């Protein structure tokens, strides 16, 4: 085989992408970088602040330490309230999300209208953040943990309802038919045929949501909806950094602990 022949048979250039593909890719990259830089400009970020950011941060840390351990007495009650808000909110969600999930599942809803209503509730609930729900419920119930509990409930309904509805849509069709064939009423079919199949998922998502809610309820106080957020907010506003340090450490402990509990329980029930 001559050299030319060899070259003809086996190309010496190999590219993963065609030039066109490469071009398109670089155009995308350039576009993204451009938009990012343009956004930075639009936001009018005061770059000067960054010059002494490390000083500021160091200053903050120095002030947080040593933490004011005596303050922990005042942290404890709001911390417990935070856990209550998350737990009660999740418990209410457990009760409310249930019927809504049945309405939003194609195979258990009554008609198109009820399905649409169910879906609408789920979507509304999910697209508004817990803290924003907090704002709304504080406007209704006044500041305090009641608003917080409702905020947690309002946000979690969408989360749990969606997952439960998906589970309901996946139940075994044959089982449902068999129960229907015995002459069972609609409610009996739900209770005997559907519920046992989705119960593990309901428990799993509830516990999972509970641990998310613990984290969410730590900030509800910022809008006045109870929990540890209230004293955190006031300590920050008073620049009482040694108190802030204690509060943050305690939040940290509770959140990590709840995550651990939630994971352990979920592992046991599935």
């Amino acid at each position, binding site marked *: 085989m001559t050299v030319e022949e060899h070259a003809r048979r086996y190309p010496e250039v190999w590219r993963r992408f065609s030039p066109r593909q490469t071009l398109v890719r670089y155009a995308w990259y350039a576009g993204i970088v451009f938009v990012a830089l343009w956004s930075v400009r639009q936001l009018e970020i005061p770059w000067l602040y960054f010059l002494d950011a490390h000083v500021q941060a160091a200053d903050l840390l120095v002030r947080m330490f040593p933490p004011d351990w005596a303050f922990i007495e005042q942290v404890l*009650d709001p911390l417990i309230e935070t856990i209550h808000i998350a737990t009660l909110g999740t418990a209410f969600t457990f009760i409310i999300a249930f019927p809504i999930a049945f309405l939003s599942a194609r195979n258990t809803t009554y008609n198109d209208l009820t399905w649409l209503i169910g879906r609408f509730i789920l979507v509304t609930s999910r697209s508004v953040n817990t803290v924003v729900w907090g704002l709304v419920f504080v406007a209704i119930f006044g500041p305090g943990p009641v608003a917080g509990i409702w905020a947690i409930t309002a946000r979690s309904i969408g989360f749990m309802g969606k997952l439960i509805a998906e589970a309901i849509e996946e139940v075994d069709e044959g089982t449902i038919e068999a129960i229907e064939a015995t002459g069972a009423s609609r409610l009996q079919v739900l209770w005997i045929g559907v519920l046992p199949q989705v119960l593990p998922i309901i428990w799993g998502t509830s516990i999972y949501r509970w641990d998310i809610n613990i984290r969410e309820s730590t900030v509800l106080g910022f809008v006045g909806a109870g929990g540890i957020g209230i004293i955190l907010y006031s300590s920050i506003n008073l620049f009482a950094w040694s108190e802030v340090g204690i509060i943050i450490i305690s*939040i940290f402990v509770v959140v990590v602990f709840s995550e651990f509990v939630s994971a352990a329980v979920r592992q046991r029930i599935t």
Partner: protein
Amino acid sequence: MSSPPVYPTRWKPPSLISSPAARRGFVALAVLYLLWSFGTIEVDWSRVSRGLPRAADLFSRMFPPDFSRWELLVKGVGESVQMAFVASFFGMAVAVPIGLCAARNLAPRPIYLAARGIIVITRTLHEVIVAIIFVKVFGFGPLAGVLTLFVASLSFIAKMLAEDIENMPPGSLEAIRATGASFPKLLVYAITPQMLPRYLGVSIYRLDANLRHSTVVGIVGAGGIGQVLQASFNRYDYDFSLAILIAIVALVFIGEFFSAWIRGRLR
């Protein structure tokens, strides 16, 4: 001769908790918890009982939503989107080194622990807490918001990246190492091709999440539409609040749709 068998007429389903005492104890505990929690939370019941009429009043004042100050609305939404985008962009970039350091099968032990520490701490604190601290340090405005979302994106993407790398089949790493490749070459040939699609997918998801969170960090003064919302609530401007809420829901929707579309195309 054997008589016809006698069958029982009672049957109880076996309970999850077999001992009845334990079962009753469990129920009692639950009831006690409810009593305790309702007893300890401080509630101004008279204020709460006025809630329902107030809710009616609130909703009547929300309708119809007031879009007349749409310029403020558009500016707020635009700022939120820009905050989300900038935060995702930089978060995505910085997440790479941290994610690599947080992968047990790549990084030496001390570096691994440090990187994991950063991820755990930033992940545990709620964005709003981070936001308020940044507001105190850098003042009101979008900078605090961008930094908050940046930190959140950073830890989220880094965690995902690290987990993906740890779950990589060891074979492909070893095969490339066996060719005598140096660490940078290992990165380019073994890790990048495997990780890139997931990394991009997670980043796009995070952009969508940032869009959602950008609406709340404003509540503590960190810029974006949330700040406008908080102000309207404080001024009892409820019809404007509803307009903002509608805008937020629309924004979240578009974000979710867009993110799903891009992730679909990446695959």
